[in-house]
């Protein structure tokens, strides 16, 4: 092959991936001096870039409220784009720690990026806070001491109260449909475990690949299963598409739809029509809660960014608030890492948008009051999640004994914790 044919062939391949292959970071610097330096990583390019942007917004909102100062020390936030890619995330984490000399790391959205960075900081002890990395084992079987889930949650923690609520509604037969990756497996397992142990039956479990363009084959199967309700775990564009097609196929109004928290998150329903109305989900945060603290945050966020806050923005605002309060408690001295980490683990999040204090369990995962939420239209005609019931003090272990729970294998597509009858 001569050079021209070579160029022709390779040009074809390059055109296909020209822009998507590379990340796009940028740096936001505040004042110089003896500052506290924070490395924030978020996917600012790639498929989850929208959520990544909200991570940066929520995180910066807190520091801006504080005037970029904490306990008398200026705060510098160095933002890096992890591109939703674990290899890139690792490289950026290395740069932030070894080149930018940050005091601690924050962020990441996708579980695989978080796990890669967690493995890196395990070796060097840099504190790493993960408000939206939900991989179960990071606070269960593979805990890393310096990785703390401030204002975060485990995947299987949130759907459990929803399963209990479903049993109380008298639902006996439920089918699940979830995205076929770890975050989907774990959330779906939390639901399936509690639902079957309470006497319900999981009739079938469907797994769709990420970025499913057409849900009609799945919806067709669900429609013929003779079920009382559907539990679904989808996020991003998949969630919007599933809702739309579910409604278009006429199942809406016939079979109730229950969703994992991300399914009706603002990042999804912000652009949805009436198809999202009435869907029930469970989460620790509900932007439609009438709690005055929550409303104060929702109002401030909406005024600043022109949209209702999503879970990503909320979690990073709260995470920053939590760590910020600890730094104030330590009078700005975080030079002793062990002391800093212990102080975080023993602290309580107060004055947060949740309007009630939050603390960690013994494994470094927060215990929340979890809302059962329903999507309704608010006074301004926008859809949002309103609490209809509250489950107090839900930990990642639900009602199980942590030691017994941890002795069991982690959830996967094949291990859904379903009770055999």
């Amino acid at each position, binding site marked *: 092959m001569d050079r021209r044919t070579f160029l022709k062939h390779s040009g074809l391949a*390059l055109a296909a991936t020209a822009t998507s292959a590379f990340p796009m*970071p940028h740096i936001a610097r505040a004042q110089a001096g003896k500052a506290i330096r924070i490395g924030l990583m978020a996917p600012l390019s790639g498929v989850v870039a929208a959520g990544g942007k909200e991570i940066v917004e929520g995180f910066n909102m807190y520091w801006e409220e504080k005037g970029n100062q904490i306990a008398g020390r200026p705060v510098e936030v160095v933002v890096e784009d992890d591109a939703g890619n674990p290899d890139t995330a690792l490289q950026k984490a290395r740069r932030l720690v*070894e080149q930018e000399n940050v005091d601690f790391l924050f962020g990441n959205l996708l579980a695989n990026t978080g796990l890669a960075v967690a493995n*890196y900081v395990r070796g060097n002890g840099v504190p790493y806070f993960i408000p939206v990395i939900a991989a179960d084992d990071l606070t269960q079987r593979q805990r890393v001491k310096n990785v703390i889930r401030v204002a975060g949650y485990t995947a299987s923690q949130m759907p459990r109260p929803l399963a209990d609520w479903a049993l109380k509604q008298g639902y006996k037969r439920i089918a699940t449909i979830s995205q076929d990756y770890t*975050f989907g497996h774990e959330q779906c397992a939390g639901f399936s475990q509690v639902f079957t142990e309470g006497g319900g039956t999981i009739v079938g479990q469907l797994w769709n690949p990420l970025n499913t363009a057409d849900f009609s084959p799945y919806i067709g199967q669900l429609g013929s299963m003779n079920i009382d309700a559907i539990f679904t775990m989808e996020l991003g564009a998949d969630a919007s598409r599933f809702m739309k097609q579910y409604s278009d196929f006429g199942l809406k109004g016939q079979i109730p739809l229950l969703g994992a928290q991300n399914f009706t998150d603002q990042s999804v329903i912000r652009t949805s029509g009436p198809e999202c109305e009435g869907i029930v989900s469970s989460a620790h945060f509900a932007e439609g809660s009438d709690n005055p603290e929550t409303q104060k945050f929702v109002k401030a966020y909406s005024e600043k960014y022109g949209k209702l806050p999503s879970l990503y923005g909320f979690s990073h605002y709260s995470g920053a608030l939590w760590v910020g309060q600890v730094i104030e408690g330590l009078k700005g001295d975080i030079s002793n890492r062990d002391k800093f980490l212990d102080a975080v683990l023993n602290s309580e999040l107060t004055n947060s948008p949740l309007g009630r204090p939050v603390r960690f369990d013994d494994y470094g995962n927060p215990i929340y009051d979890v809302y059962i939420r329903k999507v309704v239209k608010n006074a301004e005609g926008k859809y949002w999640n309103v609490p209809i019931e509250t489950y107090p003090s839900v930990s990642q272990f639900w009602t199980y004994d942590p030691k017994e729970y941890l002795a069991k294998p982690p959830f996967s597509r*094949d291990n859904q914790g379903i009770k055999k009858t």
Partner: protein
Amino acid sequence: MASAITSVRHSPLAFIVVLAAIFGALPPLVSTYELSLANEVLIFALLVMSIDVLAGYAGRVSLGHGAIFGISTYVVIYWTTIMGGSPWVGCFLGILAATFAAGVFALLAARVGGVYFLLLTLALGMIVWGVCLRWTSVTGGENGIRGSGRPDIIADPTVFYYVTLAVVLALTVIIWRFVHSPFGLTLRGIRDSESRMRSLGYGAATHIFLAFTITGLFAGVAGALYALFNDFVSPSTVQLAQSVEGLLMAIIGGIGTLFGSFIGAAAIILLENFVSQYTERWQMILGLTFIGAMIFAPEGILGALRKLFARSSSRQTKS
């Protein structure tokens, strides 16, 4: 082109010495982060050379080498973390697995050329990616597998860097020898005219099969080094973007130059990591660089340099 090839034939050692001097002098001069970038440049240069042997010398552009590279990474991490085995055995198994996978790829792709070869290797690479993504019980799916750290003897970043440098340079000599052997000359013959080589009695498919499998071994070594370097593996290591990035590096450095692989890998990794610190629009700069390279230096950076030298030296002899 011909003069470029002859000039290398006489001086592979000069290049090796220059590379060893440049990369060997880095550790005391740069920060640990920059050293990790240099380490990555070396690992990718090896992957790029494996692509370059096929693309530059046999005229077959592979989009499957990123996946072959990643298979090795997966095997090493799986062996050390899940099976609890020794990392040295893991590296051996990883390289073996990559070579075997390359052999399977080669069986399927050796008989076709041009764009069909490109598409076939692309498809095979996508299969590897799909398996890694969906076979959750083995590969950890989307989350990947976390490694259990490098063995103590090479745990220090500087020591590991020198080990990488030694391995990569040794393999560079081997690859150089390989493409300048009679076998390598046959590959070049196949690139230039397959039908003529066939009528001369050379089995084109057999040669491509062997070349592909052997380059799989080189990519496997790079993958094993990457496993030790990153201590983590996930489907993003075997995805198409990995193969494409390798190919881009080969083109920027200069297809068919071998040593251009180092320049290409360095150029792209440095662009990615340094320009991006100064501007959000660094992808645009990268794109413009590619367009510029294609217009002004279609033989890549090294190819252009050689042409320049050849021109000036011929002018000198004339005058």
